């Protein structure tokens, strides 16, 4: 009987990475009372990470469109490549926050899935800027919803995650509002330039985005 148990134990040890193998150190458990994010709030932040990544891929598609020979707007392409990397940075900041709060010890693999972007064609730089503005507005709305969830998680005794709420409000919303204002300004200026000189207007605006004076 003892031998049988030993065999079972050995098989279990080999099968499960929760046990030590000859190649790794036995996992340890330390007190977990300090891990205080509520389940609903954690889920909301995880979803936000995925949304930032999706936005990052969508900006890549915009940048690819404006890089094409037949479109030839390197200034817009540069703007959107940079926006794409910025969205990726946002996802990273949220991940680092979760790590600081003791999260991401399990279910890390399912945190991010890469899907092909929804849109791949824009009729003009103006159309792309307006879509970017719409996208940023949706991201802002989603962050507000995370804040609402984390400020009062009804499924967890109305738990208020003060620090995360402050972080999202102070850092993320601030950046969203500044970013939206920037895109809105660009869209307005471009639209005015396009009014009577559409081809020339977009050409000049593109070079301005490139940092070139002509």
């Amino acid at each position, binding site marked *: 009987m003892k031998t049988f148990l030993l065999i079972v134990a050995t098989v279990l040890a080999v099968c499960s990475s929760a046990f030590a193998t000859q190649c790794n150190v036995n996992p340890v458990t330390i007190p977990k009372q300090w891990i205080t994010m509520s389940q609903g709030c954690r889920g909301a932040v995880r979803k936000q990470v995925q949304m930032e990544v999706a936005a990052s891929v969508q900006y890549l598609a915009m940048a690819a469109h404006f*890089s094409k020979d037949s479109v030839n707007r390197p200034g817009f392409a540069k703007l959107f490549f940079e926006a794409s990397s910025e969205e990726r940075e946002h996802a990273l900041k949220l991940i680092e926050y979760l790590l600081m709060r003791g999260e991401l010890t399990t279910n890390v693999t399912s945190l*991010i899935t890469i899907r092909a972007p929804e849109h791949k064609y824009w009729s003009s730089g103006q159309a792309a800027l307006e879509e970017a503005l719409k996208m940023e507005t949706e991201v802002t709305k989603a962050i507000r919803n995370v804040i609402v969830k984390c400020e009062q998680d009804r499924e967890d005794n109305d738990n208020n995650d003060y620090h995360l709420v402050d972080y999202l409000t102070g850092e993320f919303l601030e950046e969203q509002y500044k970013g939206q204002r920037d895109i809105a300004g660009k869209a307005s200026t471009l639209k005015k330039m396009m009014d009577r000189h559409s081809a020339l207007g977009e050409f000049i605006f593109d070079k301005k985005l490139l940092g070139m004076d002509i």
Partner: protein
Amino acid sequence: MMKTVFALACLLAASAAADVCFNDVSNECGRNTNSLALPSCNAVYGNFGRQGNVANELQAYANLHLRRSYEFLLSSAYYHNYQVNRPGFSKLFRKLADDSWAKTIELIKHVTKRGGTMDFHSRSPQEATEEKNNTIELQELESLARSLDIQKELAERAFFIHQEATRNNHKTHDPEIAQYLEEEFIEDHAKTIRDLAGHTSDLKQFITSNGGNDLSVSLFLFDEYLQKIA
């Protein structure tokens, strides 16, 4: 005489092939319409636009970098949670993630440089249709092994595209792509792969020596080492 006619014919054929954009312009500008269709005035030259091609492979290569980049990012996150807590490993994977992300953008730029359109659905026939459900929550040696495999996959895909691009007299011959791959990818791959292989050799020795008694402290010190070099 015959030779001269032949040479002349060749010259005409060559100039016809080179003047298609000019011909478009001549024909279209002479017409009394308000539109200009210039289908041949594009950046496509050589074999880049043909079927079975380097163009699709290059797009698939960009998509592969994009997916691998986020996998490395998740590995980096996992190694930075409070239980695993290996900041050196985390830094190593973060660097691989950042490199792969930068290459994604580079590849998209190069696809469009050659007159292509980036398709984010593109997959290479070289890839298995169903990706195995790979977990990134692995222990130290396993995760190094997985990274080594991924880096070799990226390197060998570059070799494959290079091979397609350098087959002389074949429909896909494209020296510009071959040169681009050599300079921007192939050179770096050798070093990354060698470094990762070296790390696995070190870990292997820690595991087997002294009856495995050194493992716990070895992994801690090796992580400290990775923090310094990565």
